[in-house]
């Protein structure tokens, strides 16, 4: 185990539920996750397992019907859930934790030029902004001194060049729809890095793009964050993508983390039955891909014990009763399962 101060973000026992028509859905139910400085952490799992919800919880932008947020989100040693809202708004969100959205097509406001949307981010989030600058009246009537604006704009153009936007100096005057999807995602990456954050939350940043463009964007993102030592939480349900970009991978199932391992270990020694099945569902030469089988459980009334047990071939009585505790397969390879795959069955 590494020293705790190497951890940038420590999510501990995080619970989030949503009020729905069918009842209270326990969408995150005791999630644990750490992200170290400068590392890219992959978060994988089937659709609906709670990846986006976890990302939004970290950003502090859960939807209005979210309830009972408990646990802790320690970021740089401070718990975000207990930090004054005002401070999170001013100094954390968009500043030290930034965001790359899934859908670059819909994430720019179509009616505003790229320049005014970028300027809005820089005005509030550029590293040049004094820490205790006021925010005016509801964000209106606040000063954006000319000198800072100019310097910020120059930085922004430079950043757009870095993400390979053609004719970056003209990008400010264009409207979002004048850019292709790939270009828009490059712009999003530029905006995410401009505030010089410690952590970038990238929620499936390439799903909406063509396969060829996906690879370019991934490479670019990886290069830029590694150069700058920025950590990334990268959610995806594509294991191939995770393999290419991540340093470590956390697997989530039905709102709980089940396995966490360095990327090589993950692909060579998957130990949780669910992880194994996930990997088997990938097409591979010489083997038919195998469906995971069964259905994702409902979250209003989830299965007791290990939530995977209705679909698990290894399940025994104990699996129905209590969620397995975290055990270590090897250094830095954690697991929550009573009967790890490949281990000798305890007597």
């Amino acid at each position: 185990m590494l020293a705790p101060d190497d951890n940038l973000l420590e999510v501990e026992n995080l619970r989030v539920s949503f009020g729905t028509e069918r009842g209270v859905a326990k969408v995150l139910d005791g999630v644990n996750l750490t992200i170290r400085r400068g590392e890219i952490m992959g978060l994988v799992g089937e659709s609906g397992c709670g990846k986006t919800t976890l990302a939004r919880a970290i950003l502090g932008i859960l939807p209005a019907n979210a309830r009972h947020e408990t646990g802790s989100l320690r970021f740089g040693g401070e718990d975000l859930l207990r930090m004054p809202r005002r401070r999170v708004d001013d100094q954390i969100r968009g500043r030290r934790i930034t965001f790359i959205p899934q859908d670059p097509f819909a994430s720019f406001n179509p009616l505003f030029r790229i320049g005014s949307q970028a300027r809005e981010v820089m005005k509030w989030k550029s590293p040049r902004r004094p820490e205790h600058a006021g925010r005016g009246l509801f964000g209106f009537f606040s000063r954006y001194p000319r000198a800072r604006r100019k310097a910020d704009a120059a930085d922004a153009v430079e950043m757009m060049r870095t993400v390979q936007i053609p004719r970056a100096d003209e990008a400010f005057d264009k409207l979002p729809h004048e850019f292709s999807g790939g270009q828009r995602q490059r712009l999003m990456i530029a905006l995410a890095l401009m505030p010089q954050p410690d952590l970038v939350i990238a929620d499936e940043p390439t799903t909406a793009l063509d396969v060829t463009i996906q690879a370019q964007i991934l490479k670019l993102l990886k290069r830029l964050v590694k150069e700058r030592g920025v950590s990334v939480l990268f959610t995806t349900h594509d294991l191939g993508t995770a393999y290419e970009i991540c340093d470590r991978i956390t697997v989530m199932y039905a709102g709980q983390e089940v396995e966490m391992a360095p990327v090589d270990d993950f692909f060579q020694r998957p130990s949780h039955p669910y992880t194994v099945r996930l990997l088997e569902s990938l097409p591979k030469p010489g083997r038919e891909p195998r469906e995971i089988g069964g259905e994702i459980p409902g979250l209003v009334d989830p299965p007791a014990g290990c939530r995977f047990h209705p679909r698990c071939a290894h399940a025994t009585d104990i699996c129905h009763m209590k969620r397995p505790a975290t055990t270590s397969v090897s250094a830095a390879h954690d697991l929550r399962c009573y009967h790890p795959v490949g281990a000798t069955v305890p007597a």
Partner: protein
Amino acid sequence: MRILALILQRIAWLVPTLAGLVAVVFFISRVIPADPVAKLAGETASRAQIELLREKLGLDRPLLVQLVDYYRQLLSGDLGTSLFTTRPVWDDLYARLPATIELTIVAMMIAVVIGIPLGVVSALYRNTIIDHVLRIITVAGLAVASFWLALVLQLYFAMDLGWLPLQARITGFPPPSITGFYIVDTLVEGNFTRFRNVVAHLTLPAFTLAFPALATVVRFTRAGVLETLQKNFVVYQRAMGIPSGLIVWKYVLRNSLISTVTQIGLLFGILLAGTVVIETVFQWPGIGAYAFEAILQSDYAAVMGFTVYAGVVFGIVNLVVDIGHAILDPRGTGA
């Protein structure tokens, strides 16, 4: 360039529509009985006298000829002469236009300036007490008969409390005519007693006229904001920690206003229709009351004049709406 194209497009649409409108009203008002010439000539007039007058007014010729004549007359900017005021209709309309415009614009401003923020608040506080109260008010606004609302307000604020004048546009002498808008004229004149008098007279009719339009604005803004709030770009801006007041009032509002602006054309329809009733109830010396009077008197020329006026106003409003769209939505995809 785009704006110019819009203007040309609108005019190309307006001219045939107006021509058709004139034809429709022309036939409605002449084919269908009620002999205005007899009315005009008076009870004691003989048949011969009536026929003479008819000939003099050119009402004895075939309808189609009369219609073509009327078109020709319109093209030369002449709306004809009112049978009853015996003045050119154009002069009548022109004299009454400022009163109606003043009333309509104040009502529009009430509807928009109050309606948009209320709509936003209603959306932001969806399903709370504030929202429910606002929704009840807006549903009521679209269900209440404006003449009845006018009466109730008159009864309470004018007759009972005596806070506001019952009717008319002003008591005493009007201000020196500069723009014809009393609010502006009294201010220019610097006569604040008279200004207060004018505002007091405007309050009830403007509010009554505005009420249904206000309700419409609130409903549309609420729906627009609710829809926009679901958009990914709002989630993105929240995720990036942009102050939420700014997100709502600068970014979300602009997207929502696009649909509200479309409705402004409709609103003007509501207001224009409202003036006929409201001006009559409040004895407001405007075009709406004039139109009603003209219809009751079978005053052809005046009715036609009002129709043309209404059509032109609609055309202009639609043009303004188009331009508003072009400004709000720079993508140029149009409506």
